[in-house]
C-alpha cells in the first residue's frame, strides 16, 4: 500500500510538479500567517491591555481575518489624482514578491526546503531590502506629504539598520563557516547547548549578537517601537496613507510576512532551526514552536514599548548597535583565529 502510494505520487518530486507544490505551499503559508497574525496581534494586544479582543466573528473571533479580507476586497481601488499611477499600482505587487522568494530558501524542517541553495543566506539578504525600497516607492508614488515623509524615514531607517544586521550576519557566517541555511541548522543538532545562541566559546557575546539581530529585525520590518514609517499619530498611515482596499491589505500582509521571514531567520541562525532543544525528535514542529515564540515576542514588544523618536532610533543604531556588532565581529574573528591556532 505504502509502496503503491509512493509509486503513484513519485511524480510529485519531479520538477514541474515539485515547483507548483512549493509555490502553492509557500504562498498559502504566507497568506495564512499574514491573516492569522493579524488575529494574533489583536488578541495579544487585547490580552496585554486586559481586554477580550475580537470575539464576535466566529468562535473567539477566529473568522475576523476573513471578515477583514472581505471588507477590504469590497472597497474601491482609488488612485489619487497626480499620483504616479503605474508605480502606485506596482508597489503592492512588488512588496510581497521578495518575501515569498526569500521563504523559498528557508529550511522549515529536515529536507523541507523549496530551494536548497548553498548561498541561501545571501539570497535572503539580497532580496530583503527590496521590500523596504518598495514601501518607499509606494510612499513616493502616492504624492502625499505624509507618505513622502514616511518614505524618507524608511530610507534612513534602513540605511541605519541594514549595517548592524549585516555585520551580525557576517559574524554568523564566519562562526558557522557557511552561507547555507540548511548546513547552519545541521551544525546546531544535539541540544539547545549546541545552538548558535549559546556558542559562547567561539564568541562570548553570542546572546548579545542575537539581541542585535532581533532588534534590527524589528526595525527592518517596521515594527513597534520602530514603526516610524507608519507612525499613525504623526503621519496618518505613513507610506500607506493613500492605499485603500486590497492594496493596503497586501502591504499589511507583507508586513506580517516579513515578520515571519525575520523570525524564521532568527530561528535558523541562532535557535537551531528545526533542531529539537533536547536532541530528540528534530522536525518541523520545533521550527514552528520557536518561530511562533519569536513572533509572540514581537507582539509582546509592540504592546510594551512606546514608539521611539526618530533621532532615538538613529542613535540606537549608529551609536550602540553598529559599534557593538563591529566589536562582536572582530571578537569572533579573533576567537576563531585563536581556536584554529590551538587545534
Amino acid at each position, binding site marked *: 500500500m505504502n509502496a503503491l502510494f509512493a509509486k503513484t505520487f513519485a511524480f510529485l518530486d519531479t520538477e514541474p510538479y515539485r515547483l507548483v507544490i512549493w509555490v502553492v505551499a509557500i504562498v498559502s503559508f504566507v497568506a495564512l500567517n499574514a491573516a492569522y497574525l493579524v488575529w494574533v496581534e489583536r488578541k*495579544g494586544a*487585547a*490580552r*496585554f*491591555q*486586559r*481586554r*477580550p479582543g475580537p*470575539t464576535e466573528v466566529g468562535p473567539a473571533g477566529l473568522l475576523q481575518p476573513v471578515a477583514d479580507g472581505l471588507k477590504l476586497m469590497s472597497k474601491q481601488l482609488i488612485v489619487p489624482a497626480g499620483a504616479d499611477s503605474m508605480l502606485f499600482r506596482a508597489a503592492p505587487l512588488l512588496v510581497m514578491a521578495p518575501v515569498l522568494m526569500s521563504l523559498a530558501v528557508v529550511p522549515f524542517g529536515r529536507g523541507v526546503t523549496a530551494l536548497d541553495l548553498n548561498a541561501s543566506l545571501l539570497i535572503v539578504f539580497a532580496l530583503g531590502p527590496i521590500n523596504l525600497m518598495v514601501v518607499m516607492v509606494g510612499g513616493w508614488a502616492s504624492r502625499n506629504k505624509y507618505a513622502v515623509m514616511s518614505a524618507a524615514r524608511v530610507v534612513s531607517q534602513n540605511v541605519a539598520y541594514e549595517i548592524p544586521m549585516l555585520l551580525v550576519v557576517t559574524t554568523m557566517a564566519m562562526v558557522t563557516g557557511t552561507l547555507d541555511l540548511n548546513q547552519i541548522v545541521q551544525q546546531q543538532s544535539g541540544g539547545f547547548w549546541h545552538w548558535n545562541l549559546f556558542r559562547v566559546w567561539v564568541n562570548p557575546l553570542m546572546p548579545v549578537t542575537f539581541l542585535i539581530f532581533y532588534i534590527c529585525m524589528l526595525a527592518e520590518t517596521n515594527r513597534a517601537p520602530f514603526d516610524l514609517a507608519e507612525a499613525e499619530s504623526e503621519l496618518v498611515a505613513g507610506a500607506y496613507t493613500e492605499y485603500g482596499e486590497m492594496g493596503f491589505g497586501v502591504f499589511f500582509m507583507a508586513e506580517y510576512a516579513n515578520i515571519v521571514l525575520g523570525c524564521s531567520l532568527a530561528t535558523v541562525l541562532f535557535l537551531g532551526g528545526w533542531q529539537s532543544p533536547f536532541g530528540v525528535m528534530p522536525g518541523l514542529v520545533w521550527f514552528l514552536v520557536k518561530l511562533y515564540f519569536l513572533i509572540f515576542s514581537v507582539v*509582546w*514588544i509592540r*504592546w*510594551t*514599548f512606546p514608539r521611539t523618536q526618530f533621532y532615538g532610533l538613529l542613535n540606537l543604531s549608529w551609536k*550602540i548597535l553598529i559599534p557593538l556588532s563591529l566589536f562582536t565581529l572582530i571578537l569572533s574573528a579573533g576567537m576563531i583565529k585563536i581556536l584554529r591556532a590551538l587545534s
Partner: protein
Amino acid sequence: MNALQEIYGGFKSLLIGMRITLGQFFKRTVTVHYPHQSLKMPPRYRGHIELVGNPETGKPLCIVCKLCERACPSGCIGVEGTKYEGDRRKTVTSYELDFTKCSLCGACVEVCRDGAIRFSRDYNLAGLTKEEFLLDLVRRFHAQQEARGKPEIRNPKSEIRSPESGASAEPKAETATATLNLTP
C-alpha cells in the same frame, strides 16, 4: 564604561517593562462585554424618573396631586388619575414623561410628598425615533410589576400591552440591572 553601564541599565529596564506586561497578559480581563453584559448603576444614578409602588398592595404610591407636573421647569410631565369608588385617594392612570425635554434636574422627585417617584437606573436609552422617548410610566410600572412576578393589579383605565410595545419596556430595565459577570 559609563556608556556600557547606561546600555545595560536601559536594557534591564526594558526587560522589567516586558515582565510587567507579560504579567498583565495572564490576568483576567477587566472590561465589560457591553451588549452582552452591562454594569449595575450606583444607587444615586439619575436615569429618567419612575413610579414607586406600595410594597403591600403593589399599586403605585402616586395620588395624582400634580405637584411634580407643576414643579417641572421643562413641563415634561403629565399626570392623570381617577378616584375609584371606595378609595380615599386618587389612583394614577397615566403618567406621561416627555424625556426629550427632561433635564434630570430632580425637582419632581424632591417635591413629591409621598415618595411616589424616584430616579430609575436605566441607562440603555438609545432610540431611533423621538416617540421612543415619550414614556408612559404607568405602563412601565405595570410591566416591572409583572416581571417581578408580583400579583398583577390591572388598572381598568390603563391598558397593559406586551412589554415590547411599551416605550421603555422591562427588558431594557432588566439589562441595566443585570449584574456584572466577569469571565476570567
